[in-house]
């Protein structure tokens, strides 16, 4: 399935996946059937903002604000593309 990722798309955590903070691992993790991915801080910064409400443009702006940085757009895009490929993230109509 080809997914067109554009700045107006609203990413959400994929069906069957769950994102949560794990104190024992001091990390956000993504849980899925019989498995788990421990997220890096930057991956967590993106995925925690994938709530199905905000667009990718919103997410980029919010992260740039939070980290007082600019030019993060291509990094966020690249990660979301990878996340879509792995079904971690899907787009709500």
């Amino acid at each position, binding site marked *: *399935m080809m997914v067109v990722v554009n700045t107006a798309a609203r990413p959400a955590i994929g069906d*069957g996946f769950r994102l*949560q903070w*794990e104190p*024992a691992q001091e990390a956000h993790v993504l*849980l899925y*059937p019989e*498995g*788990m991915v421990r997220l890096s801080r930057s991956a967590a910064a993106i995925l925690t903002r994938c709530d199905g409400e905000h667009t990718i443009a919103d997410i980029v702006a919010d992260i740039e604000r939070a980290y007082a940085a600019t030019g993060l757009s291509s990094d966020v895009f690249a990660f979301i593309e990878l996340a879509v490929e792995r079904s971690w993230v899907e787009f709500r109509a």
Partner: protein
Amino acid sequence: MSEPAATPSPPAGPPLWLLLELTYRCPLHCVFCYNPTDFENVGRELETAEWLRVLEEARALGSVQLGLSGGEPLVREDLETIVAAAHRLGFYTNLITSGVGLTEPRLQALKEAGLDHIQLSFQDSTRRMNDFLSSTRTFELKLKVAALIKEYGYPMVLNVVLHRLNIDHVEDILEMAERMGAEYVELANTQYYGWAWRNRGQLMPSRAQLNRAEEATARFRERVGARMRIFFVVPDYFETRPKPCMNGLGRIFLSIAPDGIALPCQAARMLPGLTFPSVREASIRSIWYDSPAFNHYRGEGWMKEPCRSCPERGRDFGGCRCQAYLLTGDPANADPVCELSPHHHLVTEAVMRAEREPTVTPAEQPLIFRDHRGSSARE
């Protein structure tokens, strides 16, 4: 370059994976079941409140993936209560079931309790073989359950244990899975523990059978593409390196048996010389971090040659302790699946015996179905 000798073990991390074997009771009598063959002698099952305490304590330590298995976990009438508590605590909950007992009201209750995932097992693609291998009439029932699971919005995940008697049906099994709308299919070759160990002579496929099954799987994958993901678990007897069993005992996996005995692997109860603690007598924290049974096979101090100086020991942890014990009598030996093991011939001989057709005829040695009579005779 010589490898350094075994080093002291690093401190253990949390038991990320918690498996509750809620009961050894099961309406099926599968010949390849890995449950202990003396399950009838296992003590009284934990009460609901005891399971809930296990969940709380393990979650506090960092357990996050939860498997609910058995036996057939649906035999427990408190399954919904256990799932609800686990969900509240933040576990990702996986039910591993034969489907027997999964009625619509129960599935609805489990969904409402927050159950995340269901893995359904089939024995074969045909009614005759499914029912023969499980010694029940459950084929039609399982098809109904599969449809129900999809109806309730769960991905359809099928598990089929492969062996000599059904491995030639792989194509039919995959077609059945496709008709059922399965998203994931695990074709898991039998691992020889418990009842499967008893029946090894009849269950071991020939290399030709295995090759045909792998080819059929590859053809099928090509046809269906990403629509259905198929995992083909190769039987380790045909390998030359051992599996990294449990990613090393006591590293991430904690299993609690129906009677509350805590184990670093579901099959580990058989390991000699270790007293596995009970959750009735000790906290999960002390069991995981402090008990001699859980510390024994951590790190590399227990290893013998050839593992002790092997450059691959950090990758496969010497393989499976239970398999080393069953085949060589000493769980600290290298898993004989490894071609570097001095006992590797025990594995190749078993494989070679399977080349002769038929290995053991049912007349010489009947298949032993997992049941109460069989269970009273200890190995």
